[in-house]
């Protein structure tokens, strides 16, 4: 009988983080890059909750709560920036953003 241990969840979290990193680095669309950041944040959340169960402490779940709030705030500001950039240059590709370097 195989038992589902914390290691399984940690492996899943590592795979999810790697996929998010892949997308973050290879996609050029700012919206997709944002979604990949969400993927990486969720991988970290999964690690926190696994640690919370593994150690028998509730604090990991509270840390997840804070990560959620920060992610929501980040999405609000980030998407507002993307929309205002799009109004200016008609594209959400980060390659065209090199014009903002001083």
């Amino acid at each position, binding site marked *: 009988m195989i038992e589902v241990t914390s290691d399984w969840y940690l492996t899943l979290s590592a795979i999810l983080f790697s996929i998010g990193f892949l997308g973050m680095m290879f996609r050029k669309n700012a919206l997709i890059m944002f979604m990949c950041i969400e993927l990486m944040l969720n991988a970290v959340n999964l690690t926190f909750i696994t640690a919370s169960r593994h150690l028998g402490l509730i*604090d990991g779940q509270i840390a997840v709560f804070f990560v959620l709030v920060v992610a929501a705030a980040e999405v609000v500001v980030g998407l507002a920036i993307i*929309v205002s950039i799009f109004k200016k240059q008609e594209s959400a590709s980060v390659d065209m953003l090199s014009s903002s370097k001083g």
Partner: protein
Amino acid sequence: MTEILLFAIPAFFIILGALIVVFAKNPVHNAMGLVLTLTSLAIVYITLNATFVAMVQMLVYAGAVMTLFLFVIMMIGVDKPDQSKESIKGQSLLISGTLIILVAIVLFVILENGLNWALFFPESENIIDGTPSLIAGVMFTSWVLPFEIISILLIVATTAALALAYEFKKSDSND
């Protein structure tokens, strides 16, 4: 057996959704892949005894954040496909190196070490149940300062989004 299925089925959908997010061409499909991942993650959280976090995940991520994403996709429309041109020299080489390191760590743990992360701390006997009352009891006592700081962060983010979205007229700046 039920335990393994409850892990394996959501895990499959999590990875499938993540791959859709990265590889789909249409931004709406990417957003739907993210919904799949987030919903499956909520199921995994329930199996990990974190019921309150699972509910918050559904409300905040699958509800609010995804609505915002879809709203922005509707506003700016479906974009042109990515150009594969490198804007920084040797960019993809550097990225591939970092990615190979990440994949190698995962493969080492799975194949060589028999899915064993060799965790430093032993597994606790203490079973916690992530109910709202337990979480609130800790959050409003020992975590109360971070909680207050996060509320300031939310206000600042709301103000920033308003300032970014609001179009300042010429007459406003003259006042």
